[in-house]
């Protein structure tokens, strides 16, 4: 007798361990200091960006270097909708996601005309258009940017401690929702189609998968979530400017390095990559730009010597899968 299953003992342990860890992290406002909470929030937001970019590049083959367009757009929508629309910040962040989804459709129809690396640079051009356009909007501070008014900040929480706990929970919640959603998506029928496209576009299209549409769906969903994360990022920063909002280094270069170092095309990769990235950053924080040099160097070495990243190495060695996506045949004697 043999059965086909997805879960393994490692994945069941990982689920329970992950659940417990989540409870501990959710309680952080009761045990962690202010600086730690801020750092952890940043980790969650980067983890979200990395998971999203990984879905797009690692699974759908859409290697974009222009996702900062949506990070910045989400940030600016938070400011615009709260300041001029009088909307609650959390609602503004979510609305930013909806608007980004709408906007991403015409952008995709244009950018998808470019293939491979040209698509990458094309998305960068579009992000530049976003940056230059928002720099023209004087009501939002033009090129020098603006700050979120105190009255709006207070809507997140009247007291500083409450506010910090709330924005911490928002970041944690976003990361959990995004990872869970990507996991659920990849296990679904459409996720299977996407994985087929990742492995071979020709074979996938031969099996009747509409490649263009599948990619479009991934692009739109990813962009919407990226904008939501962008909103949360600038809800933490409380200040926005075109250069910060649409920074290719902050929102794309780092994210790409995280995914590549951790392991592209796996769900575990971005998690490991994010932890390694922040470890590296904290250790090399005193050396200024050196840490970027090291990061670039590590990314190149990983890409050349271990293109599946750190998680790929672990997986190859121990046949481990924390998020059970592949099927296994188990034989019973």
């Amino acid at each position: 007798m043999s059965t086909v299953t997805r879960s393994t003992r490692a994945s069941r342990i990982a689920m329970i361990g992950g659940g417990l860890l989540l409870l501990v992290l959710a309680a952080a406002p009761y045990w962690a200091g202010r600086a730690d909470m801020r750092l952890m929030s940043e980790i969650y937001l980067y983890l979200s960006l990395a998971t999203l970019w990984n879905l797009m590049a690692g699974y759908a083959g859409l290697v974009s270097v222009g996702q900062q367009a949506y990070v910045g757009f989400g940030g600016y929508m938070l400011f615009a909708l709260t300041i001029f629309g009088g909307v609650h910040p959390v609602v503004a962040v979510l609305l930013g996601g909806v608007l980004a989804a709408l906007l991403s459709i015409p952008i995709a129809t244009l950018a998808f005309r470019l293939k491979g690396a040209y698509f990458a640079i094309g998305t960068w051009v579009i992000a530049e258009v976003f940056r230059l356009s928002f720099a023209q909007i004087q009501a939002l501070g033009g090129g020098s940017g603006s700050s979120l008014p105190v009255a709006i900040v207070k809507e997140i929480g009247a007291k500083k401690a409450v506010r910090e706990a709330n924005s911490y929970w928002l970041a944690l919640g976003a990361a959990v929702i995004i990872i869970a959603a990507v996991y659920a998506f990849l296990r679904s029928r459409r996720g299977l189609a996407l994985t087929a496209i990742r492995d071979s576009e020709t074979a996938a299209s031969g099996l009747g998968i509409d490649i263009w549409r599948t990619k479009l769906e991934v692009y739109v969903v990813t962009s919407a979530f990226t904008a939501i994360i962008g909103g949360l990022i600038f809800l933490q920063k409380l200040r926005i400017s075109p250069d910060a909002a649409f920074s290719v280094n902050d929102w794309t270069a780092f994210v790409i390095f995280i995914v590549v170092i951790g392991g592209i095309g796996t769900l575990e990769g971005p998690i490991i990559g994010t932890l390694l990235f922040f470890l590296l950053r904290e250790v090399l924080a005193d050396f200024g730009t050196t840490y970027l040099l090291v990061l670039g160097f590590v990314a190149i070495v990983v890409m050349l010597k271990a293109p599946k990243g750190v998680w790929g190495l672990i997986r190859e060695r121990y046949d481990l899968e924390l998020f059970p996506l592949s099927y296994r045949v188990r034989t019973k004697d």
Partner: protein
Amino acid sequence: MDWINALVQGMLLGGLYALFAAGLSLIFGVMRLVNIAHGDLIILAAYLGLSTTVLLGLHPFLALLIVMPLMAGIGYVLQRGILNQTLGPDILPPLLVTFGLSVIIQNALLETYTADPRKLPGGVIETASVDVGGITMGVLPLLTFAIAIAVIAGLQFIFYRTSLGRGFRAVSDNQDIAQLMGLNKAHVFGVAMALALAVVAVAGILLGMRTSFDPAIGGGRLIFGFEAVIIGGLGNLWGTLAGGIILGVAQTLGAKIDPGFQLLAGHIAFLVVLAVRPNGLFPRVEH
């Protein structure tokens, strides 16, 4: 008259963009590689030019005699040492490796030369100008334009009239068969990158004499070069000149409307071409 003036200045600016684009177009044509670090290499060349002029007291044009071979050497080593390993059916490795390279070059320049804007001392040529029918044209932009034409004509000649170019075209058509015919493709790719970076050296020096530069502006130059390539049509060297001119004209006309529109107008011109003619205005005819 102002508008005609802006048009002419834009065309001349296009010469510089064509030089940014020519190297990109060349390596894409030969090995289907898109080098994300291209813009940072242009800035690296400008800084190497700066060091040469400061250390040896040379005019930037004479510095080219040192910077060009240096950049070509860097290109050959880079290609054979790193980039050749990334080439294959998967587009991700070359993209990510050149992206890593871009970050390394940028930050290495930042450590070495600081973030202060620098400029190459061009001397009298910077301010010299000629008057043609009421339109004043700078000698340096004119010279840049002429150099762009010469460089593209030179590349075209190498590509279609020399044995080296035959090698380029052979590996471009079919790498394995070219290899069977006795070509060492690793070497051919190395030479192609060397040639591309020699062009980058020219572009970097001319850029450095025209405007001030700092380590962070490489990405922007990559984008201009890329836009010129796409507007002109992939795989067409003369097309990159046309693409550069269109981009330059769009930018100067945009700046004429409002200084904030300069870059935006260029990007919009690119997106319009992409929407209307996705293969560029002058795509190479496939045979």
